[in-house]
């Protein structure tokens, strides 16, 4: 396990053309890591996330992605992700190949990936048009009952990136609250990068807590408030006002590009990014 700055970790472990999953289901979304990917101008990434959320809206609008695997692409409770829509509807700033699933399908795909099985299965997609537009959704016959069961190929990202509350000095990572499919996405990946609110002497995690042991973690960076404007339970709340405000910012290509330049590209790191937002507020 490598302990370092987010800058050097992203530089060293994320490369153009890779498949990258920044997971976190509304909670603990690794925004700081996403912004660092954006700053380092990574290109041709195959982005994977159940809910692309604002962070992928930003990466897509900033030309980092060539493909997206996802299962729900909206701004939660607000409406559209306008940069994602612009890419799909108009190919701006570049065409985006989409691999679309349901949540249940994607959860099964991550679970298979974590278990290093070739595919996941579920009773899913029944009667829907999704298999018609995503050839990855197929079916098998149950060898015992002959029932048809839907299948999805395992998702094994080159790199998974998570944000968590804490890690200890050995590199064990503690995640709590709404945990989404983070554990599955973490164990499915070849490389696992984690940003944490803080590094502590002892996690003191309850016995059945989700702890990712140090030997499955590739690298850790301490990035306080690293999930903002998403949240970290026990540290800070979700900035719902920011999610509402994003609708206006992202609606317009120029306004979006200005925002990215002003707040993300002009900041050296996440602390500066947060300062620049505070100044603008």
């Amino acid at each position, binding site marked *: 396990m490598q302990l370092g700055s987010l800058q050097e970790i992203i530089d060293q472990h994320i490369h153009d053309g890779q498949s990258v999953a920044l997971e976190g*289901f*509304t*909670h603990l979304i690794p925004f700081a890591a996403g912004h660092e990917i954006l700053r380092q101008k990574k290109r041709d990434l195959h982005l994977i996330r*159940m*809910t692309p959320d604002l962070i992928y809206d930003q990466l897509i609008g900033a030309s980092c992605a060539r493909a997206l695997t996802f299962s*729900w*692409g*909206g701004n*939660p*409770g*607000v409406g*559209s992700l306008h940069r994602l*829509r612009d890419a*799909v*509807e108009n190919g701006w700033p570049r065409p985006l190949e989409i691999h*679309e*699933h*349901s*949540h*249940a399908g994607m*959860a*099964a795909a*991550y*679970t298979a990936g974590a278990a290093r099985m070739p595919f996941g299965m*579920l*009773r*899913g*997609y029944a*009667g*829907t*048009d*999704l298999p018609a537009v995503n050839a990855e959704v197929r079916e098998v016959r149950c060898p015992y009952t002959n029932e048809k069961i839907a299948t999805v190929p395992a998702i094994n990202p080159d790199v998974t990136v998570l944000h968590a509350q804490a890690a200890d000095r050995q590199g064990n990572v503690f995640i*709590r*609250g*709404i945990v*989404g*499919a983070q*554990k*599955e996405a973490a164990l499915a990946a070849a490389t696992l990068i984690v940003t944490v609110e803080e590094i502590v002497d*002892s996690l*003191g*995690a*309850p016995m059945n807590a*989700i702890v990712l042991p140090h030997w499955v973690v590739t690298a850790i960076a301490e990035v306080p408030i690293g999930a903002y404007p998403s*949240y970290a*339970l*026990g*540290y*800070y*709340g*979700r*900035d*719902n*006002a920011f999610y509402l*405000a*994003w609708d206006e910012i992202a609606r317009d290509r120029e306004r979006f590009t200005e925002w990215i330049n002003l707040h993300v590209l002009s900041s050296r790191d996440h602390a500066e990014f947060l300062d620049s*937002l*505070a100044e*603008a*507020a």
Partner: protein
Amino acid sequence: MNVASSSLNKYTPDEMMTIAAARLIWPGCVCFVGIGVPSAAANLARLIHAPDIVLIYESGAIGTQPRVLPLSIGDGELAETATAVVPLPEIFSYWLQAGRIDVGFLGAAQIDRFGNLNSTVIGGYANPKTRLPGAGGAPEIAQHAKQIFVVLKQSLRSFVQKLDFCTSAGFLNGNGERARRAIPGAGPQVVITDLGVLKPVTGSQELTLVARYENVSVDKIRAATSWPLAVADTIDVVAPPTSEELRVLRDLHKRTEIAYAGKAHRLTKTPRPLFEQARSTA
């Protein structure tokens, strides 16, 4: 229910729709809800007549009792007030797929006469006119919940002859096709709109208008439907909102508004009682 006093209340079609949906929830109902009207309706039911409703959100919150309506499906409020928070793959496999959900509450951009739903795209999939957020949990909720309540506004744009995309199966082509395909749940049993209430008719399973709201004519509802709407022999008039229903719903929305008011970029740092507690009790 005090109809006399309630008729003095002014209310919006959206409020009537939310309240009509809430009334369908029974005490103890295990309800899988999404954000928007479904979440408002389910929480209204919890605050009025079904305090023991079990609310499940796909983010993994089971038995949650939010004080304000969540903006997202994974707001901290949902986790902090839940009986249990489980990983997301579990919600879909052990809870939904295993048939432990009484009612799945869904919205959509389009519905057809057999209750099939589109929340994926308007126009062609490859060349969309409007790309919508997509499926999320809906296809499997529609497949596995014991029954589905659909809530959406009724218009020519939403009540369509043919879906641009089928995201979630209702009765497919009707006449028992859903059962023949061995889809486990009973499908959409009620569709609540801002004009009235539709239910599938026995046999063909075509959605049929069974109730209208006061001051909404059947003709108006027909005019907001792109197919020749089937209408039941007798049409009920849904009781207008009571004063209590309106008060509780408006209080809930007000609390929610206040909770989200203010400028973006305001970091709400919380002390860490939970984390400290977790550490100190370990």
